[in-house]
């Protein structure tokens, strides 16, 4: 297949990218031309930014106001480096909000599993029926699993809910096994 030099590859991908991301160009804030000009004589270094398109991204269009005049402009501009940059703020916003929601959901579910469910079950069953194991409050769901089966049979819930409960119990037991092997015994396999 041969090696594809990254410049050619990125240009190729860039053309595809332009097709895909064309909707982003409405947001004019997401493109910019950034020109970095180093110190020249007594003028300090400066960074210039403007929302211009690719064809206007050069020193003459972006550097305003021009700190030197006339014949020095060319020498000044030769030292400046202008780069065209594009980003998608919509993608960033979407990703971060999506990430935070998933994280939030996982945290809520974790809190539910570790704190709320035992409390609810304890209230439903009272202390007498269940053996309180002081071993691992987080992991040991076996007494509650049995209790849960008892509850489900006595109240004869519809099948769908039963299946979900069964699946959840099975998953919890699996995680417990994993936890025992990874955290307690420091091996992956039990």
């Amino acid at each position, binding site marked *: *297949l041969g090696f594809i030099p990254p410049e050619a590859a990125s240009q190729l991908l860039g053309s595809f990218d332009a097709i895909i991301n064309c909707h982003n160009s409405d947001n004019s804030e997401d493109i910019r031309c950034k020109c970095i000009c*180093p110190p020249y004589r007594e003028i300090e270094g400066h*960074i210039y930014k403007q929302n211009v398109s690719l064809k206007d991204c050069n020193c003459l269009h972006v550097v305003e106001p021009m700190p030197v005049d006339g014949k020095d402009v060319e020498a000044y501009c030769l030292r400046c480096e202008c780069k065209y940059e594009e*980003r998608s703020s919509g993608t960033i916003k979407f990703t971060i909000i999506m*990430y935070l929601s998933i*994280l939030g959901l996982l945290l809520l579910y974790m809190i539910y599993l570790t704190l709320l469910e035992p409390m609810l079950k304890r209230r439903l069953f009272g202390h007498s029926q269940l053996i309180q194991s002081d071993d691992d409050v987080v992991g040991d769901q076996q007494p509650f699993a049995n209790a849960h089966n008892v509850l489900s049979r006595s109240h004869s819930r519809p099948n769908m809910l039963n299946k979900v409960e069964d699946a959840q119990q099975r998953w919890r037991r699996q995680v417990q096994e994993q936890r025992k092997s990874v955290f307690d015994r420091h091996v992956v396999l039990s």
Partner: protein
Amino acid sequence: MPLPGVGTYEDFNTIDWVREKTRDRDRHREITKKSRQSTIALLRSVSDAFSGWLLMLLVGLMAGALAGGIDIAAHWLTDMKEGVCLVGFWFNHEHCCWTSNETTFQERDKCPQWQTWAQLIAGQSEGAFAYIVNYLMYLFWALLFSFLAVSLVRAFAPYACGSGIPEIKTILSGFIIRGYLGKWTLITKTITLVLAVSSGLSLGKEEVLSAAAAVGVSVAFGAPIGGVLFSLEEVSYYFPLKTLWRSFFAALVAAFTLRSINPFGNSRLVLFYVEFHAPWHLIELAPFILLGIFGGLWGALFIRANIAWCRRRKTTRLGHYPVMEVLVVTAITALLAYPNSYTRMSGAELISELFNDCSLLDSSQLCGYQQPNVNASDTAVGNTLADRPAGEGLYTALWQLALALVFKMLITVVTFGMKVPSGLFIPSMAVGAIAGRLLGVGMEQLGWCSPGADCITPGLYAMVGAAACLGKARFTVWRDPHDGVSVVIMFELTGGLEYIVYLFIISVHSRPSLCLSPAHIRLNGYPFLEPKEEFEHSSLAVDVMRPRRSDPPLAVLTQNGMTVGEVETLVESTNFSGFPVVVSPESQRLVGFLFRRDLLISIDNARKCQEGVVSASQVIFTEHTPSQPPEAPPPLRLRGIMDLSPFTVTDHTPMDITVDIFRKLGLRQCLVTRNGRLLGIITKKDILKHMAQIANRDPDSILFN
């Protein structure tokens, strides 16, 4: 019609590759034969052929998307430790100041839209009080992130911790670990990886795990070819050409998807993509070789130290408090990392800054050279920076970097192996890059260049150092003289063939005597037969087989004459995973081989469904049932589940050939015969134990079959 369950495997057992290959070939033959009969069947056969490619496409898309998401989230969360963006909380530091016009040449990071915590809470941005507030907030966020990471891992998917590469190697060799590649592991790993990396711990954003490990490396480094080579060299046990092309396709798709998401805002794939085109001097080979040796030493030292630490974690009380351990290590890391600006920034940012060659346009500390003569700069164009003496900024940067190097080396030993998802690529590269840059600046200041010529570029030294260390703290088999993967990754990162020579040189000179992944595989006792280790001892098959001289004789089934009850007793009284079937106990002539799981499932099913099968029923393995007395219960015919072509070797077969057979065919067990009679059995576990004994390791550490 095969029963459901027959042909499947128990958890923590090894796949029998020969059986699976035969089955796949049969299935394919069926489809091809049927495809000539009707168009629907033809379409089905076409779709079967394309299903592989479609799967690769989907894998590539998903991995690319996930990697892009992880990148964006990790950058944002890392910057959250230092401040918040007022125009939109979802922007990280760089994007917050993207449109602002208040950035100056010297202070490119400051803009009014980005407020540090000190500015928000205390209203000041300079001074001792502001520093303390920032420090405390940094510590707080780091602890919060790592606590969340380890809690989520513990609650949802304990398999998500670590890098997973030893486990993936083992899974790809045929070992079954149920749940390891499941959806909870994926979700948990994705979310907690971001948290773990952002908390400032010295670990890397290891590639998203998928069976096509190629895809992962491709999106981590923007190097599809390197990814494929990684897969070929490190991870895959059985890698035909078909897999090569498909992996490359998946890697390309992933790279393209990542590029479309554009996480870094300027159409690069990776944070530290650089372009070097300066020619190199012959004299520079000496320091490069030095860097290579440094890489090798670092790799060997790191591996030994890390394995010792992991062993201590396994055996002492340290291992009883994983959550506490994570918090303590995070606290220490944050406390020591904040004061030094090079350890405060994330690993990838550090590498990117070290790779950067200084031009007139840079104002960072690392580029703090004394400015050349003002008048001369009128005619100077571009970046002629030959022979500049170091200025104040550079000296400060140098000793800060030296401290950072020591800190990173020590803290990574302790961090890798904790109960959060972690990777090793980025920290190793960081160590190498720091060492390289220090050496590069040193060489530059020694003044070995001719004036006026483009001389030593310290950024290149950093890159070479990173490549040296990337290779060696990693997973290469030690006999392999060329670290192909690092070379290709570096080549793809820099985009030039000029530096291939460098990289080969350093890869030859840095060869630690251990490698990390096989060491971890051994530490965990997985039954992984290294495909490249050579077996040098001159023993015969009879020395390794079971039963040994003092053991009870081999447990066999006869082809007829045993009852269901006798078979069940035999199976339950032993825990072998398979039983050979012989013609009779006296002749011991081999008929076939039977798996325990299949046997139990068939007998169970027969008892429930088949008429009249009781404990006194005969079990028949021959083709024709021998005549039964009329009052006998109906026999149970089990020839269908027996493997009629088990592999055998004679007792005088040398072990090298036997091991070769095991490796090349992916066998799980092999029968040993003498003069045509069955003598014993060799399993993969026996071979591994034998190899462990020869290497003076503890043979009992091999746990599984």
